[in-house]
């Protein structure tokens, strides 16, 4: 019985109109990204040409160890051929970089590192930022510092001075990079970010309509007089909304993969990640893509629970659609972070999980970390989901 209920809820959520709109967006996104690739590639090629920095035969990127452009040609000749690294960013110049010999140029950080007095530096930074009231409402300087130190320590300890690695700098950075890298991974990342947004909105509509529309249209009472326990109906609706959004996203991944594989070359390389500012590790750059996909999926899922909770509470599907969409725009977050509560906000906790794998992401607000962020997100989801069940269990159907 539950299976039937669940499958029918899915069927009710998939409308021909919705499929047509999503298909149109899928095609438009393909065209748009191709156009953007052409523009950005022209732009980046010009940049490389002007700076005369492209290693011979490498048309896409450049080697990491040379963020400041101080490398001389002789060094490059002794090394194995530079891998294609579609990246033109650099280590954060404020905190330091690695030179050709693998030595760390930590600039002002170096002294503290030598004295093993990082704590003093943290303390100083925290005091300054807190004193100036920046700490809780601006990028977490201490987190950034810690993650950079962790990254450099890892390179030093693992003796990976000459291993070309690209630091993962977070979701925003990843999106920018993927636009400038005409590769399968770059295409997939950009395409899935665009489609992810469309599917997030579709998921919000499904979540909001699950109860909100049925209450408004009166169809719910026709359903509720059947021999079905209310909790079962709620569960089937929630699972159906999650399934529909996930299925569409899996479809988008398939399109991105097939088109990306046909139109572009698959390029992967070693990336450096720092988890929660405390654990550095290297992995294939494909992990970045996986993180982007997971981040989009998690956001879609949690926004569906939010939309469903709002529409169930207000008995209004429009509010269930509009409020979550406003929240996704980050406008409320920008306002509320001014009061120092940014790290406890729903939209923040949903959006930044991926940035806790990045080195010095500027997305992270003061006073949080991966586990706190995860706990905040899970608390929200628990509140949303349980409120849907409780409200619906108790409510009289008008």
């Amino acid at each position, binding site marked *: 019985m539950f299976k039937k209920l669940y499958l029918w809820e899915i069927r009710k959520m998939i409308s021909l109109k919705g499929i047509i709109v999503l298909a149109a967006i899928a095609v438009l996104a393909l065209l748009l990204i191709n156009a953007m690739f052409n523009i950005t590639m022209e732009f980046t090629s010009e940049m490389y040409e002007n700076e005369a920095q492209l290693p011979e035969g490498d048309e896409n990127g450049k080697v990491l160890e040379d963020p400041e452009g101080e490398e001389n040609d002789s060094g490059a000749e002794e090394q194995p051929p530079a891998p294609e690294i579609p990246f033109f960013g650099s280590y954060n110049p404020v905190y330091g970089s690695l030179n050709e010999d693998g030595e760390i140029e930590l600039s002002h950080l170096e002294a503290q590192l030598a004295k093993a007095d990082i704590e003093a530096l943290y303390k100083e930074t925290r005091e300054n930022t807190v004193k100036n009231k920046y700490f809780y409402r601006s990028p977490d300087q201490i987190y950034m510092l810690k993650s950079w130190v962790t990254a450099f320590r890892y390179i030093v300890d693992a003796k990976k001075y000459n291993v070309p690695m690209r630091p993962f700098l977070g979701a925003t950075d990843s999106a920018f990079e993927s636009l400038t890298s005409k590769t399968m991974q770059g295409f997939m990342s950009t395409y899935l970010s665009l489609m992810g947004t469309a599917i997030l909105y579709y998921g919000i509509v499904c979540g909001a309509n699950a109860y909100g529309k049925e209450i408004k249209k009166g169809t719910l009472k*026709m359903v509720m007089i059947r*021999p079905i326990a209310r909790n079962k109906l709620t569960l089937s609706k929630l699972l159906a909304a999650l399934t529909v959004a996930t299925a569409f996203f899996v479809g988008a991944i398939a399109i991105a993969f097939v088109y990306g594989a046909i139109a572009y070359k698959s390029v992967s390389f070693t990336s450096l990640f720092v988890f929660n500012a405390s654990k550095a590790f290297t992995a294939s750059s494909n992990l970045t893509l996986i993180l982007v996909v997971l981040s989009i999926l998690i956001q879609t899922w949690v926004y569906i629970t939010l939309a469903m909770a709002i529409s169930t509470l207000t008995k209004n599907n429009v509010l269930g659609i509009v409020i979550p969409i406003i929240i996704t725009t980050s406008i409320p977050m920008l306002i509320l972070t001014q009061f120092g509560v940014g790290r406890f906000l729903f939209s923040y906790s949903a959006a930044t999980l991926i940035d806790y794998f990045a080195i010095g992401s500027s997305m992270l607000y003061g006073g949080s970390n991966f586990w706190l962020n995860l706990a905040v997100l899970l608390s929200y989801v628990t509140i949303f989901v349980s409120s849907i069940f409780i409200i619906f269990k108790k409510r009289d159907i008008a």
Partner: protein
Amino acid sequence: MIELARMGVETILEVRNVSKTYKDLQLNGKFKVINALINASFEVSQGEILGFLGPNGAGKSTAIKIITSLAAPTSGEVFIEGYSVQKQKELALRNVGGVIESPDLYLEMSGELNLKYFAAITGGIDNVEQRIADVLKIVGLYERRKDLVKKYSLGMKQRLGIAQAILKKPKLLILDEPANGLDPVGIKEIRDMLKHFAHDEGMAIMVSSHQLAEMELMCDRVIIINKGVIVGEKSIEELRGGVSVDSIIIATDNPQLAFDILKEQFSIEVTISGNDVIAVTNEPAASLTRELVLGGVNVYGVKKKEVSLEDAFFEMTNGGEHNV
């Protein structure tokens, strides 16, 4: 009906001391306590059509929603086939079909698809495809089964509503205003259909309506509810016979004299209305007019007024009070 009674009819629905109170937020910000239903108890048996009558806001919808689990009672309990709707919903509502308030169906689905959905979530229907086709033929929508419901007229939606309610051949059928939106021919069809379901197939049917004449033609028994209280529960025959005797309206040239004569001679209830006197009595009209003529009153006309269910209803609800 009689045969069923002999066989020993089964009580399908039992409403036991059900009350519903809710708080309504007023403009002044205070909550007003509303007693939507006060200690209501009644039963519906196999093979009978029970009419549920009352002015708007009397508590009909509240009662129906509590019976169908859409609303929770503040106190009391409802049993269907012996199972508590409040505690064992899945068992209690196994054999219940209904249309509550209005037939709100999925407009963007076809009539047939609506039925497929409701059949799937009701469960326990054998040979679903065939049953859906049969039901569509019963309500006269078979030809339009592939059309989207948003293209249906109100009458067609009403029929589809009944179709989804009878999909599983329920033991208890609950219909809210089933005649709404139907033309006279459609109303008769529905009435005959319901009578067939109840009297031939033994379904217990509960119908709420404000169309009193229709109730009179359709129901075996009516419950009258006003301000949340059940004020009467009688068979149609009992209701007509027990509430009031017939009235005789006599047009005269001297109503006051006629009033005095009738009061004196027959000791009956008489009222004056313009040039008419209205006598509430079962005495033959001829006796009354003879006495009046003998007393010197000119009688221009005599009209006998039968008590209808409507009169009974108004009497029991103190004039209806609301627009019914």
